[in-house]
């Protein structure tokens, strides 16, 4: 058995950076090459570990941005007081190596083959796993109806804007933006948070058996999930993923 990976065990491995792509002024997508990557499901994440020369190490979780079947990529937002994200977004270059383990998660995932209409609700970089879901849905030619509400601080903070807009063309996908802090002049979209009134207006009615995926900072997720519960969405139809500014995710 020497040298054989134990079945089911999650191990750290070295990934090589293939490319770093700018998404917004503070967000980068990092495409990774991982030998023997077994593939992933839409919505999963990976853990990243950085180790300093003195042995100090820090771990963070990042959602997988790419669709199943594509090379592994993550999208990282730089947090000003972050320990890991400034390095990933500013220092990392192609051919650099980082330690990763994954894919991780079997709850906040979408595999297709599920006809329930999708309600995707994103706060900030919470769009990342939902983008993997939308990308996978588009690539597999799925006709599942999807409505995404995506909350950002400003128009320049919207990640994947062109790609998300392109999904509207298939007729079964709708993406709606709301800007919480700054709106460009003439902004015709929603302003402010994904508030109960707007969500109530946009959410699929419960009798259509929708499933909601909610991802964002804890306060965002709590607020949105509370409204969905009030709209009588069953608990099993509300999948949530929260992240924080430190110690945790994204």
């Amino acid at each position, binding site marked *: 058995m020497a040298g054989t990976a134990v079945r089911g065990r999650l191990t750290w491995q070295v990934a090589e950076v293939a490319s770093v792509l700018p998404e917004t002024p503070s967000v980068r997508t990092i495409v990774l090459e991982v030998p023997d990557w077994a593939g992933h499901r839409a919505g999963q994440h990976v853990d990243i570990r950085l180790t300093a020369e003195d042995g100090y190490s820090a771990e963070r*979780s990042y959602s997988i941005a790419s669709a199943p079947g594509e090379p592994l990529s993550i999208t990282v937002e730089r947090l000003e007081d972050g320990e890991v994200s400034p390095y990933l977004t500013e220092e990392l270059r192609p051919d650099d190596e980082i330690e990763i*383990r994954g894919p991780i*998660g079997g*709850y*906040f995932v979408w595999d297709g083959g599920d006809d329930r209409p999708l309600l995707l609700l994103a706060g900030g970089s919470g769009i990342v796993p939902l983008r993997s879901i939308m990308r996978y849905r588009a690539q597999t030619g799925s006709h599942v109806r999807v409505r995404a509400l995506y909350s950002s601080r400003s128009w320049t903070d919207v990640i994947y804007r062109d790609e998300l807009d392109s999904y509207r063309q298939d007729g079964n996908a709708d993406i709606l933006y709301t800007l919480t802090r700054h709106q460009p002049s003439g902004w015709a979209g929603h302003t402010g948070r994904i508030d109960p009134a707007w969500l109530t207006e946009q959410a699929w009615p419960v009798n259509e058996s929708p499933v909601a995926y909610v991802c964002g900072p804890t306060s965002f997720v709590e607020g949105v999930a509370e409204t969905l519960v009030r709209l009588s969405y069953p*608990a099993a139809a509300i999948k949530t*993923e929260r992240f924080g500014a430190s110690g945790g995710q994204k």
Partner: protein
Amino acid sequence: MTALDGNAIGGTLHEVFSAEMTAAVGTCATCGATAPLAETLVYLDGPGVVVRCRACTAILMVIAKVRQYNCVDLHGLAALG
């Protein structure tokens, strides 16, 4: 302290149980509520991982890493599967 959820410890749980556990359903030994581990309250701010029931906030699990070993306390879980 801000609570995250069980997704944030998917890697740690996989390390402890050698399996994907975020979709596994836990039963709270205090109030009897059942939920996927992904939906539990998770605190990462302390020296270990603290997992609480979202219904009654009782502690379900504590995981502390001491050197390379995970010390796992599951006394707050009546069932896990």
